[in-house]
């Protein structure tokens, strides 16, 4: 990777929250990540774009160790992601994650979904966790659904519950893995609104998405990946109006 690509938060005058340095990952003999190097600064919103199979999901899943990277280093908020249980616990409680398939727990009510981790990981008393959960549900706009089960909600509502569930752990970083891909078109905007709201509140965010409008509007920086490599990094204006790399141009011509 060339130096100009690994644009750092240091230039913005903020500390780096996520540092990914030469991260490699194989599945059998297929190399999914090839020396991925990038930084995400505090309060920065980074959108990762790229064709499917380009390794963008794999990369952000490595960041909270849902996948184990095999080369290079990842550090979150100054804590390196190694085999150390204490570091893994620290990073997981600092990093919230929202999945494409929501992954709500179907056998628990919305309220129990949200309070489960605060109560058993953070060891908060039940009442406190529930008050907090109601605040979060109000923030994502569905306080009236607290007693329902996930199967009774629409996809957009489920995804908003999933976001509330992550926020309940008071993370300092949020990872979004294609949060709107499994949604019907009319439900995408309600989820994107919640995400924009979070970004305005100063959350550090890494978002894998295909929503170009969201990227253009909210992103501080855009990282474009293909075949497990970072091809181009830049501001949205630079990326959408004046990309330098041919592969980026090809991608944009196909998608816009």
């Amino acid at each position, binding site marked *: 990777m060339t130096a100009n690509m690994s644009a750092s938060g240091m230039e913005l005058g903020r500390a780096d929250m996520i540092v990914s340095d030469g991260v490699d990952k194989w599945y059998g003999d297929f190399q999914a990540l090839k020396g991925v190097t990038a930084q995400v600064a505090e309060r920065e919103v980074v959108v990762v774009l790229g064709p499917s199979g380009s390794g963008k999901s794999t990369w952000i899943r490595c960041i909270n160790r849902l996948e184990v990277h095999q080369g290079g280093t990842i550090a979150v908020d100054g804590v390196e992601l190694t085999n150390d249980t204490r570091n893994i616990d620290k990073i997981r409680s600092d990093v919230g994650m929202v999945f494409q398939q929501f992954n709500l*727990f*179907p056998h628990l009510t919305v309220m129990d979904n949200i309070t489960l981790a605060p109560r058993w*990981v953070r*060891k908060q008393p039940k009442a406190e966790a529930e008050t907090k959960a109601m605040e979060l549900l109000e923030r994502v706009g569905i306080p009236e659904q607290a007693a329902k089960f996930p199967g009774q909600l629409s996809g957009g509502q489920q995804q908003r519950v999933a976001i509330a569930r*992550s926020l309940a752990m008071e993370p300092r970083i949020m990872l979004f893995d294609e949060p709107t891909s*499994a949604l019907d078109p009319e439900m995408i905007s309600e989820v994107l609104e919640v995400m924009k709201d979070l970004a305005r509140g100063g959350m550090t965010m890494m978002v894998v998405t295909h929503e170009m409008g969201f990227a253009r509007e909210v992103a501080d920086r855009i990282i474009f990946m293909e075949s497990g490599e970072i091809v181009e990094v830049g501001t949205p204006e630079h990326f959408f109006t004046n990309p330098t790399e041919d592969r980026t141009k090809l991608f944009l011509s196909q998608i816009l």
Partner: protein
Amino acid sequence: MSSSVVPPNLTPEDFEVEYSEEASLPPEDPSLSPSVWIQKNLFSSPSSAVLTVVFSVIAVLTIRGLLAFILGEERQWDAIATNSRLMAAQGYPLDQFVRIWVAFGSLIGLAGFSAAIFRASGTISLKRIAIWVMNIGVAAGVIGLLAPLSSSGRMGWIIAALVVFGVGAAIWFGFGEERRRSTFIPSIWVLSGFALIGVISLWVVPYGHYFLGEDGRATVEEGTVAFSTQMPWTVMWAILVVSHLVGLAVRDRLPAQASKGFLGLLWVIAPFVANWIILRDPDFDYDHVFSTDIPMALAFIVIGGAVLWAQSSSTIGETGRLLAIAILLAAVYTWVSRIEFLDFLPNWSMLQKARLSMLFLGLYGLAASNFSRDNATRRAYVAGWVIFMVIFHWLVTAVNSPSTLNIQSDTYLGGFTLTLFIAWLTLLVSFPIGVVMALGRTSNLPIFRLLSTGYIEIIRGVPLITILFFFANILLFFLPEGMEIAKVAAVVIGYGLFSAAYLAENVRGGLQSIRRGQFEAADALGLTTSQRTAFIVLPQALRVSIPPLVGQAIATFKETALVAIIGLNDFLRIANNTIPAQTDFVGAKREGLLIVSAIYFVVAFSMSKYSQRLEKRLGLGTR
């Protein structure tokens, strides 16, 4: 919403909906007249007509043969009537028989109450009831026509058949098409109605009173059955109805989740309590109890409580877990060492108590870090230990005291009661082991996976009977000096280990149906592996596994009959060996075996029908 996203959306509500089989059936085609029906279903083509004739002949000959056997002059059905108590409970002392009724009554009461709380009873439409009653009438008519009866007997059957059929027809025609299709009656009331007919018949119909007389010979008295049969069954019927009514009355006032959990717990301990009522009446040696048993229990309560209080402190960190492991190791050491550092204890039973208590203390302490939230939680955690210790020490003391009832489970308890006990206890033993094995087999820890897979496959490759032989005859050799185990207990352990392997495969199916995303979401939230398993994975997996688990329970119940081979007096053995050896009933084997088959059939068949209904209700049957 996109329905493909979340797997079978099961919620607790799914288990509560009152289910009715007919509610969603389309209206029947009214144009189908009997002649069309026969044409369509029996003689649609020449080959079909041939098949109809052939199979009709087979069916008629089979029914006729069976009836001829049952009603044959030389049949000794009085062998069964005389020995009914033997088949139910073997040689249980007559003056203590009330204990069996108390145990049975408690279970029936619990069942009636639970059926109300869990809303387990389905409903039956009037139409279906009418069809049933008419079918019974038709069946009686068929018997009357086919059976080799005297002409007066035949007339009696046919008249009875006509009466029953008339009742069914009255129900059918007494209500309009709309009403008989849309009026639903809870099936438990229909069942108790039929049961009531049976109970009343005990009081009025002169079945005759069959018993073994003082000289040990079979004796018959004309008239109704004995009072000692009439009264208990009437009371049982009343308990069922009353407990169900009480359940219906209170179920909306009780907190649903909590009362269901409590009832579940009662069902788990019920077999032990019933066993206790039937087999033991401990004769405590109070000097010993006050001098050693209570101080020892107090020591474990106080010291253990203090240790647990410390372990659940939020500041103790990894030290707490190390302490628990140290206690565990010490406990294990007392088991395996022959140098007893607990030698100062007065006797062997005290030693066992100390060892087991230490083992439990270590295990219980391993969970301490989950309860470090605040002092209230810690207090509840320690209180759990105290309650457990009190029950445990009382139980061990009681077991080690002589019983005023001189009943050894091996020799005196038997019959159907024994069958039920073994089946039930086996299920309880196999469940935790099976779940652990299933978790091990799906674990990503290679050694655990290897061990569980090896266990499951080896056990599944071997017939049950060899395992039972092993545990009934060989297990004794493996026990440490001074430890003894009743044959029934050995059989339950062996059978439990055996069915655990099959149960594990059923649970594994449930585990594999859980999507990877569930694991990832739990990990991303920072849950530990044990929290993930307890809160996310197992609840979903077990729910999916309910239908196969019920099937497994039926199989376990059926295969309990194998204990007859290794010499336990279950009711198969009594029918096959004991009764035919009595002087009055030499060779009366087939009668008893037919009754045994019928009882197994009724229980297994109704269980499997219920499980099919459950499967439909859960929407799991279709793939």
